């Protein structure tokens, strides 16, 4: 097609499968979208970092900067009717599934306008309508959950997959192996996406895994290893994986990626890895820089990208200020949405004699 750009990405490493082509088609338009999407994610996470340090955010806060190409490439290959589930490192899924930066920031600040109304916090963002099943704080627990979501797609005869994302640390969890086995037995359209950012907290992959070849760790389930810093490599591989999964059942994808920040906010991220390593990643493999270079090489003006940058910064700054100005959730929200059916009974408050009737009110009208 006119305007088509062909890009050679790093060849895929395959396990029990033949590799798809590593020449990926794209266009200036698509690349601009990728740039915009990833830059928004990047700026948002950097803002979250600052807001955390300024004490507007509390608890855990796991940032995704560095890994943007993985999610962006995935979204480019699937539809919004496909499902996604991930770990606590979930801010960007909120964005990619249609949420606003404002509602993410508001959630981090514990505001009523937040993605989960201040009830969930950083690790517990969801978007049921956008088929985003969260945000899970328990390492590995989202893996069988994702297989179950895939089961529901198949049960209803829908042509959709569930993208089940987890880290290299989570890849050792027993429930992953249980889920893989059942997904295999039942041919579930589940794509197990291991985001290998090479560290689980402070533990390097090889210290946590006897075999850090994550794309082969499904053993009897086929796998593919992808340069997760290259959005085009990811897009192409996920399109391949989706077709495979719908036709045959589960597949494992290892995305070779990197997190720039520490694990969560209390981790400087520099005691178990060298500054050199981090710098090399930023300068040599940064996913946004890669797309930028492609755009420039394909005739896009640097000024146009600067404009995008500026718009994004303005959007993020605006969202941050709006979130700061958000409202504290009223105390009686404590008692909402514990049950969907009326409980027909009261639950106990902190003090004896204080009983409350929990109600189901997902619009938080009352």
């Amino acid at each position, binding site marked *: 097609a006119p305007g088509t750009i062909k890009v050679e990405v790093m060849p895929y490493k395959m396990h029990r499968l033949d590799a798809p082509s590593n020449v990926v088609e794209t266009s200036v338009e698509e690349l601009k979208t990728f740039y915009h999407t990833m830059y928004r994610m990047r700026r948002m996470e950097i803002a979250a970092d600052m807001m955390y340090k300024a004490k507007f955010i509390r608890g855990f806060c796991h940032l995704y900067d560095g890994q943007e190409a993985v999610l962006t490439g995935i979204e480019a290959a699937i539809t919004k009717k496909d*499902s996604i*589930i991930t770990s606590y490192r979930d801010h960007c899924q909120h964005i990619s599934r249609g949420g606003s930066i404002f509602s993410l920031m508001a959630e981090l600040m514990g505001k009523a306008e937040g993605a*989960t*109304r201040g*009830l*969930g916090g950083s690790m*517990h963002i*969801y*978007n*049921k309508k956008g088929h985003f*099943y*969260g*945000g*899970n*704080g*328990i390492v590995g*627990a989202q*893996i*069988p*959950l*994702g*297989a*179950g*979501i*895939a*089961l*529901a*797609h198949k*049960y*209803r005869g829908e042509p959709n997959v*569930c993208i089940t994302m987890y880290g290299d640390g989570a890849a050792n969890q*027993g*429930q992953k*192996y*249980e*889920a893989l*086995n*059942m997904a295999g*037995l*039942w041919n579930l359209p589940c794509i197990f996406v291991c985001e290998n950012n090479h560290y689980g907290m402070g533990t390097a992959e090889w210290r946590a895994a006897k075999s850090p070849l994550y794309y082969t760790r499904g053993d009897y389930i086929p796998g593919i290893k992808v340069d997760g810093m290259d959005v085009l490599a990811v897009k192409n591989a996920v399109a391949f994986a989706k077709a495979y999964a719908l036709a045959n059942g589960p597949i494992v994808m290892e995305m070779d990626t990197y997190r720039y920040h520490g694990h969560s906010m209390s981790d400087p991220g520099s005691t178990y890895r060298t500054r050199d390593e981090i710098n090399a990643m930023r300068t040599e493999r940064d996913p946004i820089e890669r797309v930028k270079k492609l755009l420039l090489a394909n005739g896009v003006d640097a000024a146009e990208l600067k404009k995008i940058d500026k718009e994004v910064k303005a959007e993020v700054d605006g969202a941050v200020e709006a979130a700061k100005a958000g409202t504290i959730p009223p105390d009686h929200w404590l008692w*909402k*949405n*514990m*049950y*969907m*059916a009326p*409980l*027909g*009974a*009261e*639950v106990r408050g902190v003090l*004896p*004699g204080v009983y409350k009737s929990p109600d*189901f*009110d*997902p*619009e*938080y009208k009352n």
Partner: protein
Amino acid sequence: TEMTVRDAINSALDEELARDDKVYVLGEEVGEYQGAYKITRGLLQKYGPDRVKDTPITEAGFTGIAVGSAFAGLKPVCEFMTWNFALQALDQIINSAAKTLYMSAGQINCPIVFRGPNGAAAGVAAQHSQCFAAWYSSVPGLKVLAPYDSEDARGLMKAAIRDPDPVIFLENEILYGQAFPVTPEVLDKDFVLPIGKAKVMREGKHVTLVSFSKMVGYCLKAASALARDGVECEVINLRSIKPLDKDCLVASLKKTHKMVVVEEGWPQSGVGSEIAALMQELAFDELDAPVLRVTGAEVPMPYAANLEAAALPQVDDIVKAVKSIA
């Protein structure tokens, strides 16, 4: 007519599978083997392998899969061969099933029933005899039901499956084969009992006996024995352990002013502890004696028949406890 508890659960499952095609059953040996305790007999033949799914022996995994499918709109009935094995899956039950509706600010509900035999069977020793009623009933987001007879089993199972929230359904292996009279109303396809309501099985004015599951039968026997000595016991079948039917308990206490709670589980922080704490909190001045707890002994379950009997409440123990305050 009479019906066993096994048939009561089986028929409830059957009818709910027929009623709603989002309902499906999964667990170990539920299909081709017809259930380790034959609770799912005939269902695979009737509804096929997509709706009656045999799983490998991987509780964490299949529980997570069941919960995920419930998030996505299906209505799984997840069998644990016994509740002891659910210990391997507890994280998924608590952190995924029970908490997600709240964490997601009401977006993602989890219509699932976890079911299986709970507590001591006969001669199955320490790892296979634990009662989990107190643990699950402490968790906000869960509802916990425990049927005693066939009426309970049918009406509560249907309520559980139709409920949009996660329900823990605690059965008792020893009751499966027991037959109870059932009325035509109980056999109706839409016989649904309310969650959160206890049932007064026998009225009485001297002492209230509170229990659930198999111990309800023991309390009824103790009440009969005590009636011969002129002590009239009111027997309450909790049916629902979360939520507890406070009103029913307090109303009875106001009548009898004395209460004995009977359970097979361990004493510390048990269901009886909660009820005793509640009663003295809600009706301090009504109490003519302490609320007494008759419980499983505070030991892992021994194997030998005599030791096992000594570790569990017997009808005689209930009689003794009542007599100590009557």
